[in-house]
């Protein structure tokens, strides 16, 4: 009896043939879709972003009856109507008006633009600084590592809220020339929050890189003559990215909250420029007579922070290769 010679590698190849090749991204996408809360959150966030992006454009084309001016006027941020202050929701003002008779819905959408832009920029800057410094820190070790980590620790121990309050009260009257004042305020807020927040992603990426730097593919890259910077940017950072993405998503909600808290206390973006936080500030005095002014921005803060958190949760599961979903 003769036994047929089996080529093992051919068998392996056959097995691979059956399995359709999937890119990393499509695998992650499939896993994320199976996380129901995260997927719903993604849709909610997409709707909010779409709403604040195009909502004001549509409303800008619409008119309403302004009692004070006795005319039909456009919805616009600073259009006041002192004769219809704190009006409850109606067909002219779907979400009512505030203490100066401005349309709450319109302000809400405009505010959303600013709040979301600020939080996205802050997180983007935080993460870029953090991931790079963390990768350098973990990759080189030694005194470079100690130096970067001590600096990171210094930023961590800074008492965030008092510092923010002090800084923003110093900077509130400083203007960057050539750009609108609300932008210049936002830029200060973005810079301050970014510089306070980078140590988190720095530590995370350092941890990942520490575990990667002793893997053999790092040594292989070195053996091929790749520079340290090349190894960090081509091998370390792409591998550190998934946990950082999760951290960043969770951070987005946090930044919205911090910005709201600052604005609520009057140290963030100043009225008349609207953010979700300072809309709440004006609302507290009329909490009982005009509750929509507090509830509606509060609801949007709640929903977006929750959605970012669930999305982060879902991404954590989706991006973890060890977890079989």
């Amino acid at each position, binding site marked *: 009896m003769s036994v047929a010679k089996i080529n*093992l*590698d051919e068998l*392996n*190849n056959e097995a*691979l043939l059956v*399995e359709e*090749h999937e890119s*990393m991204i499509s695998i992650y996408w499939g896993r994320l879709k199976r996380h129901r809360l995260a997927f719903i959150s993604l849709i909610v966030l997409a709707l909010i972003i779409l709403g604040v992006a195009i909502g004001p454009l549509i409303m800008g084309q619409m008119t309403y009856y302004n009692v004070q001016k006795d005319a039909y006027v456009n919805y616009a941020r600073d259009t006041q109507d002192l004769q219809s202050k704190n009006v409850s929701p109606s067909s002219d003002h779907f979400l009512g008006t505030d203490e100066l008779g401005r349309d709450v819905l319109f302000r809400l959408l405009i505010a959303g633009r600013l709040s979301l832009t600020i939080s996205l920029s802050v997180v983007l800057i935080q993460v870029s600084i953090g991931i790079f410094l963390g990768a350098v820190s973990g990759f080189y070790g030694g005194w470079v590592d100690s130096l970067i980590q001590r600096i990171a620790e210094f930023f961590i121990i800074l008492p965030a809220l008092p510092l923010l309050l002090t800084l923003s009260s110093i900077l509130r009257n400083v203007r960057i020339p050539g750009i609108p004042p609300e932008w210049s305020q936002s830029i200060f807020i973005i810079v301050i929050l970014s510089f306070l927040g980078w140590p988190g992603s720095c530590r995370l990426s350092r941890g990942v890189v520490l575990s990667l730097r002793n*893997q*053999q*593919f790092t*040594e*292989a*890259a*070195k*053996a*091929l*003559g*790749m520079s340290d910077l*090349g190894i960090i940017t*081509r*091998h370390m950072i*792409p*591998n550190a*990215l998934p946990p950082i993405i999760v951290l960043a998503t969770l951070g987005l909600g946090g930044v919205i909250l911090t910005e709201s808290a600052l604005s609520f206390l009057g140290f963030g973006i100043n009225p008349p420029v609207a953010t979700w936080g300072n809309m709440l500030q004006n609302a507290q005095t009329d909490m009982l007579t005009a509750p929509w002014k507090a509830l509606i921005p509060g609801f949007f803060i709640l929903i977006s922070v929750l959605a970012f958190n669930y999305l982060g949760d879902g991404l954590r599961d989706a991006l973890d*290769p060890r977890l079989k979903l």
Partner: protein
Amino acid sequence: MSEVKEKKVLVEVKNLKKHFPIKSGLLQRTTGWVKAVDDISFTIYQGESLGLVGESGCGKTTAGRTILRLVEPSDGSVIFNGTDVATVSKQDLKKLRQEMQIIFQDPYSSLDPRMPVGESIAEGLRIHTNKSAEERYDQVVQMLTRVGMRADHAKRYPHEFSGGQRQRIGIARALAVNPKFIVCDEPVSALDVSIQASVLNLLEELQDDFGLTYLFIAHNLSVVEHFSDRVGVMYLGKMAELATREELFRNPLHPYTQALMSAIPIPDPKQRKKRVILEGDVPSPINPPTGCRFHTRCPLAYDRCKVEEPKFVDYGDEHFAACHLLDEGKPSQLPDMNK
């Protein structure tokens, strides 16, 4: 294995040392040294494969890495084709990296999990040549087919492959820059036996096709016997014996080599062979024994072994060994424990 005809030295290792500092305490002061590789010298001829064997922790892998200067040597020199790898400048080292490559033991950690394997293979080309993306891809495909994989595998990620396939990809990556010398760091230890054979055969084919020279690091003596032209035996950071394969397996001079040989399993229950069992463990390389490092476990050790370090001497036909018994012309054969 091709017979080595004209013996041209490709790599010459002279008194190579690698000592790792042990740091402790608050100030991270150096409190001791791990002497992973402690003064080894040997030559590798062009076109041969030199096997390097020894127990775990004896410094074989560190030796391989120090030769490629993946870790900085503490002392000594490695002359590769006339250049001293140990002292060459950063720029020249980068050029030299094309000529010396390494294949790793663990196929699971030797490929970047987030990079398609084709890109991993093309990495060397990206660093050393100005080829366009298409040219690189063509060469990647060529390399993949050469190691027995398919062109469309280039776009896949490492997790989609088996261990043997990954090892082939690692080989393709090393080959892509067209090296002369490859350090194979236990390339088959992590693989199934059936896959081991196919990877070893592939390495042999490639040696013939590309005229490669191998430093083959292994702890499996049967694999080394199958694969190497000459074999070096290491013990605790030192070279114990070095000879051609036939000579070493027929006539092991150093007691440690004899003990290693007797540990090779023979797949025949009836056959009896000489049996030597060593007592104890390999001592720590932090405080290695004085004199001959093997004296704590050597059944034939005597006074001189404890104080004087034996020299690594040629006992004829390039059969090197480091043992005082040989130096004094006494028999160095260990007694058979079967009797």
